[in-house]
């Protein structure tokens, strides 16, 4: 039952399940704008998928939550408009009616499956509870239904999984449980709030396929919130684009993706990183290696089965305990001066651990790593200090990586001061760096909270550059940013790299991002390198199965490939 033709349902002729009319949601007085959602009108037809797209702060999640009245009242409240579910206004329904509707007629799938499930209850019981509340079925009937639903969402061995606790499942399995939970009462509408954002790309692809399939099978309408146009291309029938609480574009998926009307939509679509690898101007294979890694290993945890006598006396305790995990397993890597290498892998592949070993935040267990001839494995923090000006790092989360109580200028200048530059000169350099990364030099006097995510990441880059490093390690520097900002930051990194002749090690889970900035790609899986080579070669002809799966999982790849000819122009040179 794979339905690919539902996409064509026309916007005009639908039978609406949910109609939102002029919905406004008010923000508290101290917020930066008055309304989180400003007079939005939307319709979701029976059995169709409406994708609501927008960046963070666009009000898309607030809009979705207000349908089920899950707003944190009284801070956020519905200020006006109607939410009609089959003609019944939910904005004015009383609490008892809302309880019936939640789960029964409209259900919701949240972004983070780990925090949406109760860790102290088996997943089977959590679904059983919904049936217990909403139906009068017997225990056996309910159990049959739970197992049938688990089969529906393709959980392996449903009879066993019913008795499992959330922490015993993988992220993808947990999200399947969440979907099973939302499906079990056969609601008319499922609201999914970025349900795949926290998942790896291969899992994301599976979950999206599953959602689409189930929707066809059960005829459920789907309101899907996302920031990713790739996902939109994959599943949407119709698309609504939101910005600052307002609807800026609304139409069928085909129209919006291929002929976007509003400049904001166009900008969002253009910002989706291209699947086409950049052409690298100079093959950098002649330069000498600046970073040489040999047989590097890092193991986390001890065998946790406990002492032998305990395992013998209580074998159940030790059952299923995972022993040590080899996060980095005999990795060899050569990075030549001036090259840009992407380290690609899913969560748990050991890519971040490798990076942290190379910058001295973690101590590798064995092997060797030379930075321009200096061994770094086994160095204490104090011994690391003279090497700090060689390697620097740009961190993932721009909201956590800047000290909220230090002025931007001091944050950037600090590294140079530690290297022995006098404070006034360091501050002067910090201002120049701010200018270089595209911020006003006056930013030096301000605090990090006054800046947006993209601006903060620019500050993070300036901080890393302040000590004039040879190697820059960027650990998922854009994964916490909005799509439209991602591209700017990537272009900035690329630009700076050329300007300063930096060597870059770029950690990412997104092959498209890797293709945008790096000439070489190294694919990691379970701590081992499974494939390496030129980006263009890997994209054209992936050798390893895993690389192929990764490439095939990029959401919306067919839609992106369509525009190939006009995207061939290389960027940022």
């Amino acid at each position, binding site marked *: 039952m794979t339905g690919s033709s539902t996409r064509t349902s026309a916007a005009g002729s639908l039978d609406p399940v949910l109609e939102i009319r002029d919905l406004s949601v008010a923000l508290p007085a*101290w917020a930066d704008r008055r309304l989180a959602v400003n007079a939005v009108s939307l319709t979701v037809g029976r059995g169709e998928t409406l994708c609501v797209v927008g960046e963070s702060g666009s009000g898309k999640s607030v809009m979705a939550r207000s349908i089920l009245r899950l707003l944190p009242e*009284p*801070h956020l409240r519905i200020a006006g408009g109607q939410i009609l579910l089959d003609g019944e206004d939910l904005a004015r329904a009383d609490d008892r009616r809302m309880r019936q509707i939640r789960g029964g007629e409209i259900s919701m799938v949240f972004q983070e499956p780990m925090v949406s499930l109760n860790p102290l209850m088996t997943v089977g019981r959590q679904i059983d509870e919904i049936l217990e509340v909403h139906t009068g079925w017997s225990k056996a009937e309910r159990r049959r239904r739970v197992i049938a639903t688990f089969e529906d969402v393709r959980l392996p061995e449903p009879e066993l999984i019913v008795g499992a606790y959330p922490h015993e499942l993988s992220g993808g399995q947990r999200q399947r449980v969440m979907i099973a939970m939302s499906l079990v009462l056969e609601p008319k509408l499922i609201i999914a709030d970025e349900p795949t954002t926290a998942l790896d790309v291969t899992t994301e692809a599976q979950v999206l396929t599953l959602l689409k399939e189930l929707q066809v099978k059960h005829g459920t309408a789907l309101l899907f919130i996302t920031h990713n146009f790739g996902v939109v291309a994959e599943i949407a029938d119709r698309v609504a684009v939101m910005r600052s609480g307002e609807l800026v574009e609304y139409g069928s998926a085909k129209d919006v993706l291929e002929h976007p009307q509003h400049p904001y939509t166009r900008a969002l679509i253009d910002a989706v990183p291209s699947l086409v690898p950049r052409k690298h101007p100079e093959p950098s294979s002649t330069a000498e290696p600046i970073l040489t890694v040999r047989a590097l290993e890092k193991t986390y945890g001890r065998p946790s089965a406990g002492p032998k006598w305990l395992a013998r006396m209580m074998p159940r305790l030790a059952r299923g305990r995972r022993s040590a995990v080899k996060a980095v397993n005999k990795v060899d890597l050569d990075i030549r001066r001036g090259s840009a290498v992407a380290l690609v892998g899913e969560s748990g592949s050991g890519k971040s651990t490798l990076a942290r070993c190379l*910058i*001295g*935040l973690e101590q590798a267990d064995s092997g060797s790593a030379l930075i321009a001839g200096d061994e770094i494995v086994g160095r204490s*923090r104090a011994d*690391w*200090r003279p090497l*700090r000006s060689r*390697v*620097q*790092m740009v*961190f*993932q*989360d721009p909201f*956590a*990586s*800047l*000290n*909220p*109580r*230090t002025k931007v200028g001091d944050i950037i200048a*600090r*590294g140079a001061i*530690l*290297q022995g530059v006098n404070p006034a000169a360091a501050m002067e350099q910090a201002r120049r760096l701010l200018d270089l990364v595209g911020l006003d030099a006056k930013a030096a006097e301000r605090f990090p909270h006054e800046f947006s995510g993209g601006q903060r990441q620019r500050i*993070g880059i300036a*901080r890393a550059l302040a*000590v004039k490093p040879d190697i820059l390690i960027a650990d998922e520097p854009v994964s916490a940013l909005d799509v439209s900002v991602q591209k700017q930051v990537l272009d900035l990194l690329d630009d700076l790299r050329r300007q300063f002749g930096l060597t870059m090690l770029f950690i990412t889970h997104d092959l498209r991002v890797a293709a945008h900035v790096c000439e070489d790609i190294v694919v990691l899986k379970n701590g081992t390198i499974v494939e390496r080579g030129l980006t263009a070669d890997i994209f054209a002809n992936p050798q390893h199965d895993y690389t192929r799966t990764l490439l095939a999982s990029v959401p919306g790849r067919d839609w992106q490939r369509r525009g190939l000819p006009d995207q061939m122009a290389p960027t940022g040179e």
Partner: protein
Amino acid sequence: MTSSFWIRFLGNPRVLLGLIWLALVVIGALAAPLIAPLDPFAISGKPFVRPMDGFLFGTDSLGRSVWSGLVHGARTTLLIAIIATLAAVAFGGLLGALSGFYGGRTDNLLMRITEFFQTIPSFIFAILLVAVLSPSATSVVVAIATVSWPPIARIVRAEVMSLRSREFIQAAVTLGERDFVILFRQILPNALSPLIVTGSLLVATAILTESALSFLGLGAPNFMSWGFMIGAGRSFLRDAWWLVAIPGIAILLTVLSINLVGEGLNDALNPRLRTP
């Protein structure tokens, strides 16, 4: 402190009430010799003069002015409570910071010491300390500080542990910053808000402890204090209610005000935790 903090803090009516009373107490304490020129220990009139009868709050069994006692007592009580709290915050904060930052064996050792102090009933421990050290203003301060630092150490430790793994600390490490600089310039400033809240509430506890010690006659000798006034007046409760009631109400209102301000600080510093 941003302006939104001040709006949330001063816009809270409970905080305003607390601050007004505390301001009155502090002004009274500072201006004690001006507004109550009579020596609180001097016999200034007949004993048991009722309030508003020549003396604002009457006189006690020896003819000492209750008003003078109240105002001069505010000095002693506040001074001892604040110094003891500062000492407890400094000591507990340092211990908690070291414990949370270094973890492992250091943490284990320091936390076992903390637990040792936490297991002894605090008021009995304070009595014991004052008795051993012989009653004086210093020993009261030492006793209060000794029994009140463990919660501070625990809070700072937890805060430092969570901050230690933040990316900006890792960034400081990769820049080659030294441990102590990281601890004092990067971590502690970010751990200040829970410290301020707990510290302010600790002042209230310290006032209560000081009053209780004085009540038992273990307070600082030669210093008038609220607890001492209650202790001295308690045998005349039926004939001269004001001897106990007036300092008692002063303690009640002051402790209440500090708690209101402390909770207001908490609400203003952590707006997301506030219950509507």
